[in-house]
């Protein structure tokens, strides 16, 4: 059994049931209905499910993740110290722009495992950079003056003061 997914550009993706099950929205569309209506709407459809907010390139990337996790359970909950498998980290990469799109799409499609992975990917890219570097990376216009930045840094870096109380 397979389901057709249609991206924003109209490209069609034929995916099998275990892969589609990873995508919460598709799962609800295709199989959630039989809970309410008594029959499944899209079990044998030729229409497909349109995902209007996801572009083809991002959808194909997301389907790679779903394909990898079709048999095993991804990490969905845990604290900020949780460690993802190496495959996941290689999959998400370091391209900030792409991760942001994946994050937005994972939120829209309701894929909690991928959502956390994308957050972790962004945090990894941001880690170890100074404010100027983050502004350059993200194209944010810095609206603090240098003086303000120094003051805020002094005020909120309490742990730094605690480590080096000079």
């Amino acid at each position, binding site marked *: 059994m397979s389901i057709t997914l249609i991206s924003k550009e109209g490209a069609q993706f034929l995916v099998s049931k275990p892969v589609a099950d990873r995508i919460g929205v598709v799962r609800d569309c295709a199989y959630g209905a039989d809970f309410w209506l008594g029959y499944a709407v899209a079990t044998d459809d030729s229409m497909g499910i349109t995902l209007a907010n996801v572009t083809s390139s991002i959808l194909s990337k997301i389907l790679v993740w779903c394909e990898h996790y079709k048999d095993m359970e991804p990490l969905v909950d845990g604290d*900020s110290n949780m460690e993802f498998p*190496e*495959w996941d980290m290689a999959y998400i990469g370091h391209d900030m*722009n792409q991760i*942001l*799109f994946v*994050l*937005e799409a994972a*939120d829209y499609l309701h894929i909690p495992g991928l*959502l*956390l992975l994308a*957050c*972790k990917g*962004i*945090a*990894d890219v*941001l*880690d*170890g*950079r*100074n*404010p100027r*570097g*983050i*502004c350059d990376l*993200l*194209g*944010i*216009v*810095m*609206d*603090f*003056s240098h*003086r*303000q*930045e*120094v*003051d*805020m*840094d*002094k*005020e*909120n*870096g*309490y*742990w*730094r*003061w*605690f480590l080096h109380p000079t």
Partner: protein
Amino acid sequence: MKLNDLPPELLQLIIAFLSPASTLAVALTSRVLFEITIEHLWEAPRMLGLVTVGDRADPRLFRGREGRCGWVGRKVRRAVGLERGEEKQRVPLVVLRARRFEFYASFVRSLSLDETQGDTLSLEVVNKPLQLVGLSSLPIALPRLHELSVHASRASFLKSACSLPWSLCPSLSRIKISVQQAPRVQDNEDPWPSALKDTLAHLPRLDELELIRHHWRGGEDALFDLLSTRFGATLRNLTVLGLDFDMRVLEQPLPALQELNLMLDTDAHVPAVLSMHALRKLHLHPITRMDGSQAVLAALDAPELGKVGLAVGFLSALDPLPDEIDSASPDPLHALLSLLARRWPHLVSFFLHISGTHHPAFQSEAAASWPLSRLRPLLTLSQLKEIHLVTPAQLPLGDADVASLAEAWPEVRVLHLRGGVVERAAGWRALSVLAQLPNLQELALPIILRTPSSPLALISASGVDTLSMGQGDVAFPDHSSSGLRALFPKLKTLQFDTRPGNSHADEIQRAGRLMRLRIALGSEPEKNRGERREMKVVNPWERSEGRIGARESAEVGWPR
């Protein structure tokens, strides 16, 4: 697409993955991100940082030109009611700082008052800003506080921390108190034992209590009276370390207790029946004798108990005395294990850790030995998932013994049998049997590999990723690696014990052989797997973390 376009809840999720330093860097980029990030920054501050928050920043932040005021400064000035610039001089700087303290304190979710970390003064310092903003006490300034932990060793600090009206925090759901006897305190600063009772009575609830002192000298019953009547419904975790603790006070009902840590040596103070129906974890710390532990295990009525740990100070506690070996006196180790197996046949996790060898030292260098016949009661615990036996005694477990172990524990996930190695040790056959266990992940066993590879060519899907060979040996390191790889395809870490302090030439050669095995395993060409393997050398004696709290057993160290 930009980061700022994301909804705030997604931004908060991202920020939760950042380190404090990176969080601050993100906060300093723009006002939008600052507003989202600052809550996370002040979730669990150090008390000292919270109290002195205004002092370290540039005072010009408040007094300078309008353009220099930060976002917080503006918020603070609005809270004070300052609108125009000329009114600034009217409001003293301390009030502004106090407002700022109030602002940051409203984000705090978890607070730790640790005397050893320099929080001693903070409770005196904190009252000044609180008075200035019109709050009567610290808990009112912490509306989001979720978890409170107090670590104290002096009575005055404990008293000032506990007597605050914590019941005014609406969302406080976890209080941890830890009281540790300091090496040198004046008599009037000693929190034990009656002062402790009066102090704890102020708290609205109590979830975890840790009491560490050298010797108990009476007074426990009043304290446990209070624990049972006031905090019986919430107290989940109790740790009592110290010699001569009167265990009869535990007869009073503690219905919510789930984890219990006890130090005891003799059975002098053990009651006949101990009823704890919610207990799940039990840790005992005997030092030189086992009769106290025996009595507790016999008296305990705990149907839910799944995890038992014993951290024994000296090996001699589990060994029959040398002049009694021939007589019919019971073997303490065998008696303990059979009692355990009889009382809780559904035990999930068992932990036995021995710190030192003999006390007092024997005249002869008679090395203790734990053959399978002494461990046999453990084989009836068929649901064990974690087993840790860390002992300086020798573990003469041959291939047949290991096979019977593997048969007895089909669901085992962590198998740690760390002991001295003798001529009769496990080899290839034992490894190939263990490789058939489906759930096994961590394996530590003294192994001697005398032949280059396994005599049985079995296809294995073993999930073992950590293998510790203990004080084992390998005869043909370069050839054995492929055999190990075939048995344990997911192996990532190979450890061995280098026997610290032993500098014999054969020891150095043995370490060299094991190093070569490790290198041969690491440099294996990767054909089927894309994952990178890391081979680490870790000394397991340093890593075996025992829950020894006693000064006596902590001083012992490992046998040299």
